[in-house]
């Protein structure tokens, strides 16, 4: 038995490596590492503020160690120590590492559990299916409707030949970057079914009952997703697709808001290292009011080269967002209502492991 790859998503198409549970049933120790860095240059139109930017999209470092059925893992992601409109940070507004995953867990006969900073099953699965989270996280995470991880514990069961995956999470509800602010705890559940026992088709359902902040603002979610990845040829070409919808009750500390959103995407490697990706998101504060809707379209093309232990990729494309008058920053004004970003995004995601006797 080899050391199980701790970050199984590092592949030609999946440029979004994630920490996965480790376990060793042969008494050996497995040490696994992850490095995932991406940068980008972009031009934002119209030129309302800063139009030309060079930035770090992602800098993640992860480490996992498994010993027998038990394992620990820690991942840090770079974050600015001060927001764009703040000067009170670390050494100016320096990049600093923030822990976004840190858990101890164990796996036993299809069951696994972990406690610490644990992943939100909806966000992580969505990013894995979309596969380009360093370029743009799924719409729910990107709009801050969902944190990617939170303090809490999770229990998972995977069975029926990997056809069914069930996850339950108990968490603080504040997200990994905020301390607990109330006595209420979020209870989340996710069910994924792969009817054919392959990644070609996965149907997922998600629900969360939660609260956020000092004011116990409700923070409930219900979502559904259909995604899959199918090989096109024996040479490794493939097609990934997906569509999801999410209903929220309570958002951004506002309990009255109940927006609805959805996203659909396709990512294809038609020949050689060529990668094409497209995504469309839409969300609205009021289904009966077209002025309350927003949509986003993203298209990218580039190459993804397999290198030992990972993927080197470069993508160029455009990302456009339009917001209706009721949901733009300044109602009735074009400022901030629409923006197009033309970008060049370059990244390298590596994952490796070391098996100890």
């Amino acid at each position, binding site marked *: 038995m080899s050391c199980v790859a701790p970050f199984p998503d590092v592949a030609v198409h999946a440029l979004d490596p994630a920490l996965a549970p480790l376990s060793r049933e042969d008494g050996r120790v497995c040490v696994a590492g992850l490095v995932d860095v991406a940068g980008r240059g972009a031009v934002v139109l*119209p030129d*309302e503020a800063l139009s030309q930017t060079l930035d770090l999209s992602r800098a993640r470092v992860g480490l996992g160690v498994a010993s027998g059925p038990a394992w620990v893992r820690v991942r840090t992601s770079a974050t600015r120590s001060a927001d764009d*409109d703040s*000067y009170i940070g670390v050494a100016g507004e320096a990049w600093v590492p923030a822990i976004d995953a840190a858990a101890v867990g164990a796996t036993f006969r299809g069951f696994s559990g972990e406690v610490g900073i644990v992943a939100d099953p909806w966000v992580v699965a969505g990013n894995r299916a979309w596969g380009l989270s360093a370029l743009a996280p799924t719409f729910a995470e990107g709009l801050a409707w969902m944190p990617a991880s939170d303090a809490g514990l999770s229990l998972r069961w995977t069975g029926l030949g990997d056809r069914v995956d069930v996850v339950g999470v108990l968490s603080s509800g504040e997200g990994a970057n905020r301390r607990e602010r109330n006595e209420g705890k979020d209870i989340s559940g996710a069910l994924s079914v792969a009817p054919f026992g392959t990644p070609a088709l996965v149907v997922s359902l998600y629900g969360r009952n939660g609260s956020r902040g000092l*004011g*116990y603002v409700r923070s409930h979610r219900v979502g559904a997703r259909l995604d899959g990845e199918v090989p096109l040829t024996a040479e490794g070409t493939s097609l990934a697709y997906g569509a999801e919808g999410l209903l929220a009750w309570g958002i951004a*500390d506002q309990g*009255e808001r109940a927006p609805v959103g959805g996203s659909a995407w396709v990512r294809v490697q038609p020949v050689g290292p060529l990668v094409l990706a497209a995504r469309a998101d839409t969300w609205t*504060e009021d289904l009966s009011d077209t002025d309350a809707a927003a949509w986003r379209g993203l298209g990218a093309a580039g190459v993804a080269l397999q290198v030992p232990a990972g993927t080197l990729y470069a993508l160029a494309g455009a990302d456009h967002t339009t917001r209706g008058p009721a949901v733009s*920053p300044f109602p009735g004004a074009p400022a901030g209502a629409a923006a197009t970003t033309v970008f060049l995004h370059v990244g390298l995601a590596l994952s490796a492991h070391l098996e100890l006797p």
Partner: protein
Amino acid sequence: MWFLALASCAAPGPLAARAAWIQEQLTADNAYWLTRSHARVEDKYATMAADPYDWMRGSNALFLADQVQPDPERPATRFLTVPDAASVLTIGDPHLENLGTSLPGEEPDPNDATAVAATAPMPLEWVDLDAAAFGPWTFDTRRAALALALVADGAEGCPECVESVASALAYGYADEIEARAAGEAGWPADGEDIGEGALVASLRATAREDGLVSAELDSFTVVEPDANGVGRRRLALDAEVDDQGDGVLALTSGDAARLERVLAAWTEGRPDGFRVLDAARQYGKGVASLPATRFVVLWDRGGADLDDDRLLNIREVADAPSVDGVYPGLGAVYDDNADRIAAVTEAFRTRPDADVRAGAVRDGAAAFKTTSLSGWFTTFDHGDIARAVILKLATPDDLAALGESVGRALAGAHARGTTLDGAPSLGVIADDLAAGGGPDAFADERVRDATTDLATLRADLSLFQTLLDRSGPLLGAEILAP
């Protein structure tokens, strides 16, 4: 407590949802101060709860966040259609207490003060620029209109004063922008035009009077004989802060070390021969910045007598309110808050010597600003204005004249600023004003928003007071204790 999670399933009522929103916005806005001193934040909240105007002063972040939240019910604006109109340099919090007189140049020797008082120009300046940032020019006008409307709302027997003062501000602002864009000199901030009304005239008169008799110096200090029987001035200290959290206290060792660092780094505005005679920490001053570290320094130039004794105010400056979507790209323009304050002070003041003690100093990650502390530098006081109206010392026309003066002062400041891209703001605002329908449309919008903002403000204050009763003096943020 698990029932709380289940209880949160239900849709909240509008008041409960609004209360939670207020609670979160204020806690986030005060997060920096909460890491420092819970007592000072409690004092700030108590001050805000006691007076509608102080509630307005302490809730600017909430005001700004409300403007940009997705809400199908928000009325649309006719402005911000011209590129860069949403990213001009703004005052950030242009309420009445942030506008006051200044005395250009050095303060006169007390023996010369009478002559100076009779002739010195005393321009109106925006004196607190802590919230200055790049954003929509309309936000400043809306904020200023709300401040004026709140004062006017207390004018007994003048139900139309809210509308008239907001309208006067808008027309004053628009006229000033149009005049300056046409190449005219614009409203002289030190003009002392009789048309500015009794309230503005009274402010200038008060400043002259207080400056003449060194009222501020006398209020902060006492004169005692030294060992040789020579009178020496020192700061009058309180033993502790009073029930309202106010007081001037002796420096702790930590305060003294910090002040020493700040003074050592202070260059812009530092006079020749500067000598510290005494220093203390002031508590309870201001509203939004009440928790900030504030020093009062008694200084002179080394003279043997008391005539060159002066006061210096040194106050910590934090970030401008952080609201997504309002102030894009601020961090790309200035190095830090000290750089920001120095730059915006230079940009907004009507003349370079408006306050010769104005400066900015960095102390590690913190920033401090220096200003003169003197009767010559007197800001409007909403309480004084309200009393003047109630006592019939000022008429509704005086209120409207005040509104016009505030509008012109705001327009003048905007006209001297730039956009985020470095272009002059004046042309951008003038074009945007015209594109949106001109002065009449602008006045209509200001009156409309002032009326609704005033109602929202009063309702929010009531919710805030209830929150304090229900959640405690920190709105429940005690659990975030570092």
